């Protein structure tokens, strides 16, 4: 073998090291963002935390893209150029009729777009309904309704901010876990922040719904439903994260005791 040709083993270690050094020098700051430490894969940390870390990186990228689009989109919506629809429930009175004799669906006719049909079993007719059915519609916010548009835009930006807080804190928690030292007081604070975010999402939804009910001018009147954020689910998630924060607090205390034990 010629002297200047390395064996395969040497090639794998020698050239790769040189190549990585070159990559690190040139793209080091981007690598820091991606934190591509291959020894993490099943080496220093488990595959679970590695996969979670990777998912968070992808989410961060997606959030960056959404955030970059947020400002121009917000401007579009506020100036009345973008379509914004709001889910709502139609309040009576409304007219109910059948499409045809074979189709047992209810068509709710009103001045705006129909978006839901209720199917009835064969033989059942609308006039036998004891109560008006729940009819859900999508309200397209009028161009001139700047108040409602501002509320929707503000709510969307608020949700984006909460998403950033979630991803930001999760990434730092996972990073500390990858580093092998997750039980630190900062993670306790981060988990408590995540719990607050879980409680904040439905509150934001509720606030948006209440304000939109007042700003939306529609005839016939409607009740804004909102994004349909699962209150109970998020409340349970928030409580679970708070409980986890207490676990981490105990772990942090034990870790500190261990550090101070000779």
């Amino acid at each position, binding site marked *: 073998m010629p002297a200047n040709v390395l064996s395969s083993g040497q090639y794998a270690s020698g050239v790769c090291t040189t190549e990585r050094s070159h990559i690190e020098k040139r793209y080091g700051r981007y690598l820091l963002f991606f934190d591509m430490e291959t020894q993490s894969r099943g080496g220093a940390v488990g595959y679970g935390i590695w996969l979670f870390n990777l998912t968070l990186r992808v989410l961060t990228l997606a959030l960056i893209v959404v955030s970059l689009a947020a400002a121009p989109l917000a401007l579009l919506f506020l100036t009345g150029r973008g379509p914004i629809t709001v889910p709502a429930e139609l309040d009576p009175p409304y007219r109910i009729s059948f499409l045809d004799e074979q189709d047992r669906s209810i068509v709710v006719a009103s001045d705006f777009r129909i978006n839901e049909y209720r199917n009835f079993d064969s033989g059942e007719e609308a006039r036998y309904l004891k109560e008006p059915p729940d009819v859900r519609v999508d309200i397209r916010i009028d161009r001139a309704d700047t108040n409602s548009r501002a509320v929707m835009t503000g709510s969307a930006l608020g949700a984006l901010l909460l998403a950033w807080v979630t991803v930001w804190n999760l990434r730092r928690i996972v990073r500390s876990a990858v580093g092998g030292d997750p039980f630190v007081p900062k993670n306790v604070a981060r988990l408590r922040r995540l719990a607050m975010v879980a409680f904040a999402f439905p509150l934001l939804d509720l606030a948006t719904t209440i304000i939109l009910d007042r700003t939306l001018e529609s005839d016939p009147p409607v009740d804004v439903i909102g994004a349909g954020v699962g209150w109970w689910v998020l409340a349970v998630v928030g409580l679970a994260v708070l409980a986890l924060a207490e676990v981490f607090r105990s772990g942090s205390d034990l870790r500190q*005791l261990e550090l*101070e*034990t*000779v």
Partner: protein
Amino acid sequence: MPIEVHLDKVLADRGMTLTELSNEVGITMANLSILKTGKARAIRFSTLAALCDTLACQPGDLLSNE
């Protein structure tokens, strides 16, 4: 902390430095520093035994209650 550590005094009596003790006992300088400066919240029996063996002393020579 109500428990006082007299490691300094014992080392001085035996003419030993902290570095030498660290090498003999196999405890890091950082941990010995924590112990010496009274910042330790707990000491393992194994550590105490190793110190006493190396310094040829009793636990009471190293520790006292205020």
